[in-house]
Every structure is written in C-alpha cells, then in structure tokens.
C-alpha cells in the first residue's frame, strides 16, 4: 500500500430513508479522506446523521449513493463474500455497552466470535481459543478471571472493554467508534480513552471517532468533521477548529460547551430554535433558519464546501467575512 494514499476515501456518500412523510436525508454528500494511524472526529447534535454515516461506511446500512474506498477497494461495489473479507479489517465499537453485547455469551465467547466467523481459528480448539482470548483481554485490560463471566456480571466500563476487545480481535486496520464513551462515567471514560489511544499506537489503528462530546473529540482527534442535518459544515485540524471556528454553527456549538471553571463565564452565541427536520430539507443552507448571520442568498442555492485555508473546509457563503 502506498503511504501517501489515504486508507479510507469517502466520496459524496449519501444515505436517504423513505418515510411516509417524505425522503429523510440522513447523510447528504459527505466527502473526506482518512490516512493510516489518524483519527477523524465526527461531531454534531443528535439526529445529524453521524452514526448513520459510520454505519454506511461499513455497509451496515446500504449507502444510497457515493463511494467508499478502503485501501483502494470500493466497498460499495463489493459482493457479499468480498465484503466479509473486508470486514476483517474494518470494525466497529458501539455506543451502548449494555445493548451491543450478547447477554448469553461469556466474555471469551464474545471476543472470539469474530475469529470463528472469519475462520481464523478452529472453534473446537479450546485451548487455542482460550489462549487467544486471554491475550486480547490482557490488551484491553480485563482481568483473566473474567474469562467465563457473563456481561450482566460486569459494569459499563468493563463491558465497553469487551466491545473494544471484540473489535480488535481480528487485528483490523480501521475502526468506527460510535460514541464509545458516552454511556460511561467521567472517571471510567478517561480509562477507556487512554486504552483506545494505547492500542491505536500499538497496532497502528485508524479511527473514525463519532461523538457529541466536544471536549473528548478535541483531546482524541487529529482532524474534526462537523455535521449538521446530514451535511458537512466544517472540517479541519482539531486544534484549528477550536482556535478558529469559521462556520456559524461550529461557533455556536463551541460556545455552548459548559467550561469546567467558574472563573470563566461563557460568552454564548444564542441559537434560535432547534434542529429542523431532515425530511425534505430546504435547498440552501440547512442551518440558515437558526443562523444569526443568515441572509437571502443563504436559502437560495446549495452551499458548497470551500477550502478557505489549507486543510480548512467550510460550507458557508459568508465564512471568512464573519467575526471569529
């Protein structure tokens, strides 16, 4: 594989759902590249399509249009058998460690299942299975005595470690992390984030890190993509985004994070109203209704993503002229 070639290329990815009241634009025209060993953070409010995008990339949900190239292979064009092969290298960690693990399987059964499905290990080789399971449990910080425990015996933090272990079992290159720490307490959240960082370094993993927690995403990502109602509104380096947010939505979003310091009083940019419906969205900028800077031109035509500074993409016709 070429070093300068992105590991993952997402091109004009779309996912629409047909609902009784019209077409729901869950993901609309998302394009980005992701290089080996890097982390792309995806942020946005609930319902903006971040999880659907993650699933569409893995084809857990069939994309409506667009291309996903993984290591040069077009994922969207694969047949079932090729897809199964590819899934060896593309894994996912789910949000809810309570709902995403089979309650009737032990820790080792859960972690070993991907290896058995992919025929990496003989399912009758009990000693081999246990040895491999213990290896992965050690990697994700689960005590060996838990090897035959069931999920209900474990707390949220340990369950999420099982979820991570299951995703790592096949030695993948790329993992979609769909809000992996949202369901956890802060002290446990830090443990899991550190673990994910460590295995990333050890195994050279590439992450697509979906979250709504902006302080976590800044800490964890190299680049950040901000989504609003299915569309990309801004994408740039993590530090750059926090230092110089250019889209009015990003600005409002960042200003709304409560700062854990009573000496700092937040200068909030008030947003009118709430997220509008993604069913049959308006033609122009989808944020225009809530935007403090909106003008007529915003609602007339689709707003293209522009590269205003090297590596800093913004979808706003006024970006660059607005105060930062």
């Amino acid at each position, binding site marked *: 594989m070429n070093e300068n070639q992105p590991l993952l290329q997402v091109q004009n990815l779309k996912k629409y759902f047909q609902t009784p009241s019209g077409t729901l634009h869950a993901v609309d025209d998302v394009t980005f590249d992701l290089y080996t060993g890097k982390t792309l953070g995806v942020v946005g409010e609930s319902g903006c399509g971040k999880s659907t995008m993650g699933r569409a990339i893995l084809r857990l949900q069939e994309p409506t249009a667009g291309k996903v190239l993984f290591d040069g292979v077009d994922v969207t064009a694969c047949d079932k058998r090729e897809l199964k092969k590819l899934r060896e290298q593309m894994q996912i960690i789910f949000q809810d460690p309570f709902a995403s693990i089979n309650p009737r399987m032990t820790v080792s059964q859960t972690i070993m299942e991907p290896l058995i499905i992919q025929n990496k290990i003989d399912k009758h080789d009990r000693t081999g299975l246990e040895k491999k399971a213990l290896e992965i449990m050690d990697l994700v910080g689960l005590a060996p005595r838990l090897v035959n425990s069931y999920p209900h015996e474990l707390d949220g933090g340990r369950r999420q470690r099982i979820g991570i272990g299951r995703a790592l079992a096949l030695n993948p290159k790329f993992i979609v992390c769909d809000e992996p720490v949202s369901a956890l307490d802060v002290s446990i959240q830090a443990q899991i984030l550190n673990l994910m960082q460590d295995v990333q370094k050890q195994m050279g993993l590439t992450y697509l890190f979906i979250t709504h927690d902006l302080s976590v995403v800044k800490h964890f990502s190299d680049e950040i993509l901000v989504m609003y109602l299915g569309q990309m509104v801004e994408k740039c380096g993590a530090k750059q985004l926090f230092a110089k947010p250019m889209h009015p939505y990003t600005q409002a979003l960042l200003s709304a994070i*409560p700062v*854990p310091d009573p000496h700092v009083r937040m200068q909030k940019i008030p947003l009118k109203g*709430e997220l509008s419906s993604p069913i049959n969205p308006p033609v122009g900028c989808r944020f225009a209704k809530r935007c403090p800077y909106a003008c007529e031109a915003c609602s007339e035509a689709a707003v293209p993503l522009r590269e205003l500074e090297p590596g800093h993409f913004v979808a706003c016709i006024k970006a660059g002229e607005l105060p930062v």
Partner: protein
Amino acid sequence: MNTILDVKDLVIHYETDDGCVYAVNGLDLDLQEGETLGLVGETGAGKTTLARGIMGLVPDPPGRIRGGEIIYRGTDLLQCSNAEMRKVRGRKIAMIFQDPMTSLNPVTNVGLQIAEAIQSHEKLSRKAAMQKACQMLEQVGIPAERAGEYPHQFSGGMKQRVVIAIALACNPDILIADEPTTALDVTIQAQVLDMLRELRETYHMSMLLITHDLGVVAQTCDRVAVIYGGEIVESADVYTLFDQHLHPYTQGLLDSIPKLNEDVERLKPIEGMMPDPTQLPEGCRFCSRCAYADERCRTEHPNMLDLGNGHKVRCFRYETQEVEPHE
C-alpha cells in the same frame, strides 16, 4: 442566609434478595435560601436516591429510610404522613427528572398535564387552571397554542421545558433537578440551563442541581457538594471547589475530564471502579482507588472536617495538614 432544607445523617438502604444496597449512608446536606447547590457524583453514588428521599418517593419495598432527618422550614419531612407529603410535593418542593421522554404522560396533552399539577394544589376551575398552564408554557418559551399537543409532537428539549413548566406551576420553594440536561444536546442544554437560571431568579427558588457534568456545575452553581459511596466527601463554594479541591476523589474527577484550553497527551483517570454498593469498604469509601490510602483509611471511617469558610472535606490527610484559606 437561611437554611431552607437541612438533611441530617440520612440513611437509605435497598433491601434486595441479593443483599442490602447501601445507597445513602449518613448523608448531611444543607440548602440555603436562594442558592443553587450542585450535587456531583458518578453513577451509583446515591444522587438520585437522595433526591427521591427528599421528595418522599423512595420505593418501599425495597427502599428503606433507616434514619436521619430532612428538615424543611422547621418540619421533619420524614415524620410527615402521606397526606402531608402530598401537600409538600409539587407545592413546596418540586422535582425535574432526568429523562423528559419518560416523565410525561404520552396520552394526555401537555396543557392538561400542567393544569393537573396546578389543580392538585390550588382550588381553581379547570378553565382557570388551563389558562395558568398556558402562561407557564409561555414562561418556558413554548407558544401557548401548543398546549393541546401531545408529548410525541415535541422534541427532547421542548419536552424538558414542559417538565420544567409542570415543576414550576405551583411556584415551589425548592426545585430538585436530577440531571435535567443530560439527555439533551449542548446547544439545547445551554438554552435550558439559561432558562432555569432566569426562572430561579424570578421565582426566588432554591435549587438542588444533580449532575455529573463539572462544566454545568461551574457555570450554574453557587455551592457544590461531591457525593461518593452515599456520603458527601467534599463541599465548598464553587470557586473554592474548582481552585482548591482537597479530597482525592474530587481531584481525580477534575483531572479525568479532557479540558478544552489545555493539551494533554494522556488523560489521568481514577484507577479502579466505584465500589459495589452492597459491599462498601469498611473505612474510607474511596480507599481502594486512592493513591494516598494507608492502613488507617482502610479500617477507620473518616469524619467530615470543617476547614472554615464553608469548606468541608472527609479525608484524614487534612487533620494534620495546614490548609491555606482560599481567597
């Protein structure tokens, strides 16, 4: 300032088939008139049980209030009969629950749900109560025309506003907000918190804000109490708590959150897990996760130390160590 609510040595246990859950263990907490007190802690620390205890809503069985007092304006709420409690609940002390999706009745329109709360405490005709309900909706930023709509027609943020309208309908003295914004997005959270702050001032309420989000605490509270293993481990005014937190658990909590204004390579988590509330450690509840723990911490239970200026901490380290008073 006057103390409006004083919780003294409260003990609440849940007696289950798998053993006794020690949810709240000798908890002391006081709420001053007109202040916002933040109660911070993790899952299973006993935050919600405390709130339910104050409201007289601990499910019995399995919940049992084993001892203590909850003094509201001179009366011990634990000695009140059910009928007396019904007059307090909603009228004097109101509560907002965490999940707006499940705390509203899905088959009754929101206007009626607010009116119901009003009618149960005030002698008003249905029409007058509906009128007041509409006023309340306007107060929380929902147009009165929507009073006839049902909860499923509202978004999460709007539902939480309806819940707040119900809580405030009878103009209570104390509002207990149990994670009021945890289920909401940040921009909506900011709207709801601002609204709560304004309403608290207009109605001269005192508020107990239960949360695990230290950012929310820093931005909205006057005083903070940190709860761990069913007891308060540190309490102080918000500036002291963030600048000069002393308890190792408070330090660990503040260290483990990623900060926006600092770049760190690795986060500093608190090692280990919350102790199982059926088997709390004998000595200090935090000893198994504490870097400073010694033999005494494991065997002897520390008392709350008063360091002056309202700063209290439950840790042996500060018995001998001099603490500079916070500016």
